[in-house]
């Protein structure tokens, strides 16, 4: 018998065979078919949660990177401009390139802060320039304060000179003549008053710490007192001369 026939005979017999499965077989299949649905649902939910978490994570990382990059691009410029805005209103004029400058101080600052013609500036260089600008602004502020102080000082001296002239006139009207000693005494008194006024501001009722310090230092720094005295004396003499000229 040929092997093919042999195979066919066996195949015929086995193909015709049927084996009835046990009743538990379908139950098992049914159970298994129901379970994966839940599993797949859970997997889907977990998948969505994982996807959302990944998305949130990417957003956070991208956001932090974006802001970090933005900050690192121009760190000094942003902070410098803020500081300058706070410290000096002149800075705003510089930034806006306002063409008109009203007073001398602004002119001075403007000249100093005038930006160089367009040229590429390295970040490091820019930071240095900014710090230089800050220094210049601080100097300008100091100058401004000095100017203001000098103006007040002159005003108070002028006021005292007027008072002195008035006092001398009243003494002259009473005694017909005023001695140099009396004038010196009056000048010394006026000098003291000017220095005191400088320390204690009547309007604000405040003691100027700098002026007080200067007064203490004045003990060592005699030229300051002398300067006040000389200013009073010169002013007084000029006033007197002017009055005398006017009377003549």
């Amino acid at each position, binding site marked *: 018998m040929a092997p093919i026939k042999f195979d066919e005979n066996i195949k015929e*017999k086995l193909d015709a065979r049927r084996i009835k*499965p046990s009743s538990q077989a379908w139950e098992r299949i049914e159970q298994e*078919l129901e379970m994966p649905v839940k599993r797949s649902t859970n997997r889907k939910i977990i998948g969505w949660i994982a996807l959302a978490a990944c998305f949130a994570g990417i957003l956070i990382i991208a956001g932090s990177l974006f802001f970090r990059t933005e900050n690192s691009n121009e760190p000094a410029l942003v902070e410098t401009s803020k500081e300058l805005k706070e410290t000096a209103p002149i800075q705003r004029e510089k930034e806006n390139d306002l063409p008109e400058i009203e007073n001398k101080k602004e002119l001075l600052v403007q000249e100093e802060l005038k930006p160089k013609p367009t040229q590429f500036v390295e970040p490091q260089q820019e930071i240095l320039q900014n710090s230089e600008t800050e220094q210049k602004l601080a100097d300008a502020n100091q100058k401004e304060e000095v100017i203001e102080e000098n103006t007040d000082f002159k005003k108070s001296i002028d006021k005292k000179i007027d008072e002195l002239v008035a006092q001398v006139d009243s003494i002259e009207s009473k005694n017909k003549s005023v001695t140099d000693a009396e004038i010196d005494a009056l000048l010394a008194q006026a000098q003291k008053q000017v220095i005191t006024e400088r320390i204690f501001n009547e309007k604000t009722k405040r003691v100027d710490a700098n002026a007080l310090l200067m007064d203490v230092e004045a003990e060592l720094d005699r030229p300051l007192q002398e300067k006040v005295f000389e200013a009073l004396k010169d002013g007084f003499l000029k006033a007197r001369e002017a009055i005398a000229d006017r009377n003549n």
Partner: protein
Amino acid sequence: MKVIPFFRNEKQLIKKAVKKDREAQKALYDLHAPKMLSICRQYISDLQKAEEAMCNGFLKVFKNLEQFREEGSFEGWIRRIMVRESISYLRAESKIQFSDYELDKTTESYNNVDSTLEAEHIQQLIDNLPEGYRVVFVMYAIEGYKHSEIADILNINEGTSKSQLFKARKMLQQKLIESNNYQYGTDKV
């Protein structure tokens, strides 16, 4: 007359089963399970284990039913799944060994399979074959796989498949002779 309604009915059942209709799934199972268990049993000598393999096979059938393209017969599609499932079981149990056994070289012709020989007796003869012989023999002689397909599925050479088949036939022949001698007391060549 009855064949056409049966196929129409099976197509409808498949469509419903794709939509997870449990009744349709049960109907398909009832229709094919006895045959599929018989196929699994050809590979696995333990009936309970064969049933387990069949259950796993049906689970795969229902889970992947939408992949069935209706190009071949539905039974053929299930059969292939059952064969693969049975082989997977044997692999998991590390039972498939493609070893050579000493055969009686005097046997050259094949005895006729006695028509009175029951399928269960043939199954017993097949069960007594070494796993490697049995799998290749069942795949080739009963399921109709080619040697190239068998080699591909079992990860062996085509030559190994052929030699395993040859040796399986020889061994079956010997066992058949022994069985006939036992039954009739004479050789039946």
